[in-house]
Structure formats: C-alpha cells, structure tokens
C-alpha cells in the first residue's frame, strides 16, 4: 500500500472515530449559546477551538457538523453510485436503444448545471435535508454512469466475456466475476471525489443561505456565519475550513489514484 494512500486511510479512520463520538467529545452542547462570550480565542474557558459569533463551542459544532455533513455525503454518494453503476452496466451490457436512451438522459442531467438542480430542489423545501441529498445525488450519478457504461461496453466485447457466454455462464457470473472486480476500483475513486464534491457543495449552499436550517451545525453554514468575522477571529473561520480541507484531502489520498 503506497504511503499517501495509507496516510489517507488513517486520517479517514481518525475522522470517522471523531464523527461517531460526536459533540459529547468536547463536553459542550453545540447549540448552547453564551452571547457574552462570543468569538473567544481557542483554549479559553475550556473551549478547545474557542467560541463562534453566538458564543457556541466551535469544537462541538465541528463534531456535530461532521456527523451531518459526512453522513449526508456518504448517503448521497452511495445512492448516486448504486443508481449510476446499475444503469451504467445495463446500458453498456444491452447497448442499442437502451444505451442511447440512458445516454441521452445522462447528457440531459449533465446539461443542467449541478448547482442549479440542487438550488431548485433546496428552494422547494428550504429546511429539509432530504431535498439537498436528492439534489446532490442527482448531480453525482452521471459520473458513475458514464464510467461504468464505458467499462462495461469494453468488457462485454472482451474475449473473456465472450468465452464465458459460450461456456453457458449467465449474466450474474459476468457481473460478479468480470464487471464488478474491474469497476470496483474506479467506483471507489469516484466515490471519494464525489464525497469531496458534496462536502464542498454543502459549503457553497450554506454560503448562499439555501443550506440547512439553524441551529444545525453544518460546516458550510458555519463558514457562512463565521465568514464576516474572519478578521476579528480568524481562528473561528479556520476551524470549518481546516476540517473541510482535512476531510477532502484524506478522501482524495485514500482514493489513491491520481485525481
């Protein structure tokens, strides 16, 4: 296992453990405010990373945010992968009309800029997280679809699959033995990049105030809230930014292949 990949996986593990332990780790309630102790520097009165512009403990909010952001990212990527790879294999395997139809559908979705789709969905139900999830998943599945369709098309024409079919081995054998081992590596890479895109997109949505409803501690919303006081308390905005960068960096390293 190459070093960068190992480092990536270790970081991911650390982040996962912190996420599972959640806000209780910091000993503070992420929503508890103290308006007389706003923007405290790290380390004062037991606040590991200081307090935000409403006096809430930043460390607790980062951990709480991790739970929301990462679970949303995992969910969106998982469903996008399942949906995209499934349709990709179908299109690659069947070819002909199915392939063209699904290809046109993916092009249409691709033509609609991702953010627009998410904006529209988020605007329908401004405060529910499932519309965000649906929007993000809808924009991500196309990538999985295109990769798996291309690989499936190549593999179905390969001698190995032709021989398997001549030998009477069914479709599931081909998928389990030929398609999945080949695709799984690439899907893992795409998933890592997909998760990174979701995390960044949530931050952007938070910035144009379409994100989740207060007081949910979501990294993107935190950045938007803490951005105005970046000169007064640079460490406050630094916390979500570093958390986001660390997560995305470790995802990319864990994914291994060149991004």
């Amino acid at each position, binding site marked *: 296992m190459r070093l960068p990949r190992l480092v990536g996986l270790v970081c991911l593990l650390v982040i996962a453990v912190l996420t599972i332990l959640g806000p209780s780790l910091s000993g503070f309630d992420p929503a*508890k405010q103290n308006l007389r102790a706003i923007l405290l520097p790290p380390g004062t009165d037991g606040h590991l990373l200081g307090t935000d512009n409403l006096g809430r403990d930043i460390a607790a909010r980062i951990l709480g945010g991790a739970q929301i952001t990462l679970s949303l990212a995992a969910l969106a990527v998982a469903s996008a992968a399942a949906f995209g790879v499934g349709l990709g294999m179908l299109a690659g395997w069947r070819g002909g009309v199915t392939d063209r139809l699904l290809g046109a559908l993916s092009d249409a979705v691709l033509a609609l800029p991702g953010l627009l789709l998410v904006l529209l969905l988020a605007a329908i139900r*401004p405060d529910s997280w499932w519309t965000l999830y649906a929007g993000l998943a809808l924009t991500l599945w196309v990538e999985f679809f295109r990769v798996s369709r291309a690989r499936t098309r190549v593999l179905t024409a390969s001698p190995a699959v032709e021989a398997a079919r001549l030998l009477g081995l069914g479709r599931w054998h081909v998928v389990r033995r030929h398609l999945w081992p080949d695709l799984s590596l690439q899907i893992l890479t795409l998933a890592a990049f997909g998760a990174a895109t979701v995390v960044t997109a949530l931050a952007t949505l938070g910035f144009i105030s379409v994100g989740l*409803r*207060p007081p949910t501690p979501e990294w993107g919303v935190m950045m938007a809230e803490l951005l*105005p006081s970046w000169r007064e308390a640079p460490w406050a905005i630094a916390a979500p930014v570093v958390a986001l960068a660390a997560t995305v960096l470790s995802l990319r390293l864990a994914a291994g292949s060149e991004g």
Partner: protein
Amino acid sequence: MKQPLHALALALLVAAGIGLPDAYAQTRTDVAVAAPWHVSGIDPAQDGYTFQRMEVGETLVDADATGALRPGLATDWTVSDDGLTWRFDIRENVVFHDGSALDAAAAASSLNRAMTRPGILSSVPLEAIEADGNAVVVRLSEPFSAVPAVLANYTTMILAPASFDAEGNVVAFIGTGPFAVDKVETPLSLAVRRFDDYWGEAPAIEAASYLSASRAETRALMAESGDADVAVTLDPAGYAQLKRVDGIAVEAVSIPRSIVLKLNLARGPLADKAAREALSLAIDREGIAAGILRFPDAAATQLFPPVLKGWYDADLPPLAYDPERAAELLAGLGWEKGDDGILTRDGARFALTLRTFPNRPELPLIAAALQDQWRAIGVDLAVSVGNSSEIPAGHQDGSLDVALYARNYGLTPDPVVNTVDDFGTGGGDWGAMNWDAPEVAEALTAALRQSDPEARSAAIHTVASALQQELPVIPIAWYQHTVAYPVALEGLVVDPLERTYGLSAVRWAR
C-alpha cells in the same frame, strides 16, 4: 472583445506582483456608494428609494434629520378647516433634468400616476389630486393629518411628464434633483452626474456611482480597499473591523426601525397576555445587542426608538430579562415541562415556527439566539429562513406563528401612517395579528385626525402604553444604521430617516 485581453494583461501584472501607480492620488470629484439593495427598475414604486437617496428625484415635501417637515418642491401647504382639502404651492423656476419646467400640472400628473402603483398613497383616503393655478390640490374623503408626511415618501417623487409612456410605465427617470441619471445597469449599478441647472445649491462633486453589493463582507472590503467611498448597512463584524482602519470613519445612527417579533394571537399558546409577557421576559436583549448587533444600547425597552420624538415614552416600564419570572408565569398558566424539556398543556406542546429572511444579515443570528433562549424556558422554536414575502403571506392566510423582521416606522416622517396600518383594526401584514384592541384603534384614528398637539400626544400615549402591556408585537432591538466613509470625504451627514446619502453636501479634502 478588447475587455478580456485587457483583463488578461492585468492578471499577468498581478501575477508578476508589480504595483500599479495609485490611480486615486489627485483630488477627486466623484463618490462611489456601495449598498445591499438592488436597482431592479427605474419606476419610483420599485426601488425608488435609491433614486431619492442618490438625490436624483425629489418630493413635494422634504424632512430634516430630526424628521421635522420642511419645504421641498412645494414651498408651503395649507389645509381646509374640514381637513379634507390640502393645497401645496409649487416652487417657482424649478427645471427637470430634460430642461422642461416644473409646474402644478406636471406635479399633479406625476402624483396621479403614483396612485396607480402600490405605495404609501394607497393608505391615504384620497378623492382626487388636481392642479389649480400654481398649486396642487389634494382632496380627501375623510380627514387625514399626515398628508404632508405622505408626500415626503419616495413613492411620491415628482417626475417629468416625458418620463412616462402611454400606459404610465416609466421609460426614463427625469427628476429635479441635484444629480441626473447618467447610466442605469439593472440590477446592480446606477451612475449619476451633477445637474448644473439645479434650483438649489449646486453640489461640490461632479459624479457619483451606486453599486448593489449584496454580501456584507464585500461591502466592508470595498470600503477598506477604497473601491467604495460610502459603504452602507455593514454587518456587525465588518463595522467593528472598519472602526480599526485609520483613514476610514464609521458612524452608527439609531433610526426609526425596530427589530420586532410578530405573534399570531390566534395560536393557543400566544392568546394569553401572560404567556406573551413570559416570552418577552425570556429574551436577553442586552446579550443580543452586545453579542450580535455589537451596539449594547440598541437593546429595545419599548417598540418606538428614542429618535421618534413624541412616540418614545421615557416613563413606560422598560422590558426586562427575567427567565425565572417567565417560567413562573408559564407554570401559572398550567404549562408543565415534558421529559424532552418542552412545555405541554393538556396534550399540546409549546412549539412554534419562526419565519425570517437573510437579506438583513443579523436576523438569522437573532433567530438562532431566540431559539436558544426560549428553549431554556421550555418553548420549542423552529427557525425557517426563507423569503421576506412569506411573512405577509402568512398573515393573510393565517399560517404564521411567529415572524422576526426589522419594521421601518420612518416610511413617512410622521410614523402615524405606519402605526395605523400595523395596529389599526384587523392588524397589519407587518403589525399585530388577531389582536382585538378597540381602544387602541380609536386612539389611532384620533391621532390621525387631531391637529391639536395635546390631544394627539394623549392618543399616542394610549397606543404606546397598550402596545407595551399587551405585547401583540415583542420589540427586540432598535436598528442601528451603519455607514463607513473615508475621513477625507468632508461634510457627510448620515440621515436617520435613510432619505438621502447626503452626496450633494460633501467634498473631498485638499
């Protein structure tokens, strides 16, 4: 496509880190303004306030910084004994920007056209507006003492007849102000230049530009980098930051706008006065003012801020912060805390949804603070940050629980017009909801009709104290209007009524 190449060269220069000669060295004759509001059209009914603040359009009646009325395009005005007819004498030798002269007929037609569009005129019982010789006559169906104040509002700006097409749509903004329109690029920018044939004192600066920058951080940075000379409505952090930058002066002026909580009294929990009082007691106004707004003395003790003389009543008992008292009041009403810490009474949870909107950066933050403070006394408040129009929509269809917004009581120099709309019978989109208070309605109509000062202030007093006790609307804080400008820009006066940026009176030092 010269632009991109030019920009590319600049990008290269930047990459090479070569400093550009300081283009702003010699004494300047232009001023750039940055504010959050869009210039979505040139119709006074739409975003007209920007044209008034940039002193392009003027109204018959003007108001000074204290809110006292003074002559504008009308030199003086009288009212008939029965209070139904007002005469406004039009100022002599005033010229529109297209050179045409201002006369009573032009003023009357401009006002008649304004009546066809939503605006302040719709809350006045108007019969007709006609020109009579060199005066504009306003006929009413019933007495209305605030007609001059209404004619000071931006929706009643006087435009030259050539500004309108056949259907009354505005095709060009031809006003009478010291500055004329140079170029409008909706929705973000407006450029004006000095109008040399202005009837009043000619301004020192020759040109001014207005840029709509919706992000508060951008406005603060533009002020600091010198790209915007006058940056308006800064967010608390931006204001605190610019205070520390030398060469830049910041001012915070309390204006007749209050941050209030609108309550729907038809909702079970909010019907009892004691419950509303408890909710008010649970609010830490000093904490919000100091922590979020960064102006400790912005904490509201009553609805009307001190700047509204006559309406602010010093001897009204101030609103207090006493969570224990609040808990006792709620217990007295039969609310007990459930295991999730939320009060319940005969099966119903004390849960409400607060609607607010992000255009004013501090509102979502205050909403989050209220959510936490009410939770402490067992009230579950959900916060929904959406579009500002969801509040009047909720008022009309009754779907609203609670709303948080900043209500402007200075739409007209005399706040009576707003208060009638907000607290008259049946309440108002931006005022009380399902609050029957006949004695307040009576007092308001009296204030509206009475011209005798004692009777009027007695009526106002009844209204103010009723609002303080009944709390149909819970005041949170008095709004501070913030402006930042270079020290070198002399003579800038910040208008608390937000009627003008005061560009005609400024000049650059040196």
